[in-house]
């Protein structure tokens, strides 16, 4: 990786982490556009909820009901997404290189 790209990666992750740390303090607790529409049009509807995610509502519930629980969840998410997308893209590129070199 070139130094320029390393700087891009570091700067991007730092920006994402700063936003993530600020998020619990600035995010609105109001329902989003879709949930609000559903509440207004069909308030009796209850979602069945087929699957329970470990960090529901972007919170690590084991850490209690405080902003820190949200910050930790977001930091985990940022790093998982970053690594997953990087890995998927890298694997696709490697496969392409192998195919073209044959």
């Amino acid at each position, binding site marked *: 990786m070139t130094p320029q790209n390393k700087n891009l990666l570091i700067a991007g992750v730092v920006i994402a982490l700063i936003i993530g740390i600020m998020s619990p303090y600035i995010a*609105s607790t109001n329902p989003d*556009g879709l949930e*609000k529409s559903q509440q207004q*049009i069909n308030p009796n509807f209850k979602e069945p909820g*087929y699957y329970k995610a470990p960090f529901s509502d972007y919170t690590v519930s084991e850490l209690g009901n405080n902003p820190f629980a949200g910050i930790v969840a977001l930091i985990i*998410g940022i*790093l998982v997404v970053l690594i997953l997308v*990087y890995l998927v893209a890298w694997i696709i590129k490697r496969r392409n290189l192998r195919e073209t070199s044959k």
Partner: protein
Amino acid sequence: MHIPDGFIPLWQTPIYFAIALVALFFAFRWAKNNLDERNIPLLAVLAAFIFVMMSINIPIPWGTSGHMVGAAMVAIIFMSPWAGVIVIALVLLIQGLFFGDGGITVLGVNILNMGIVGSFVGYYGFKGLRKPLGKVPAIAIASWAAIFLGACLAAVELWLAGIFPLGLGLTFMGLYHAVIGVLEAIITVVVILGIEKVRPDLLAWNKKTDQRNLQSEPSMDVKAK
């Protein structure tokens, strides 16, 4: 704009998964031919940025809130809707699996609304409007339309799922997301102009210009000789 798990009847979900899988097939084919060492870090960083921006619900009028999606942003930066499809699909997968935003059974429909519609409307909107309106208005209108049209499609899907009547669904979803789209437009313009200032080489439209300039240089040399 994530449709939560359970909103779409299970028998309808394979239709949306099929559409998403076809789009992902073409998206991976694009990635195979277009990703390189220079733009992979950018793709990963944009995905991380989009993940965190999707988690922040910004308050808008009428007691509701909204977040950016970012599909149009990625599609415009990479000048390909397939780049947006890949990023949004992977972000939605993580959000559904770990954070309960969206969900697993609705992954296909959410990829369609945010990833596919968002990326295609963003990319073709920008491409079509750039010449007549200029770069910034084209980015703003395309990214606004990406949110608005994705929300309208979600209203239609929720009508098919029996959650909303069509008229009311389109009215409320359209109204709220017309405002949320303004946030999307502002953030998209700021991010793209920021990248253009700091690393213009990362924007695909500059790459194409560079290649054209490089291709034209040898012929100029020949003429000079």
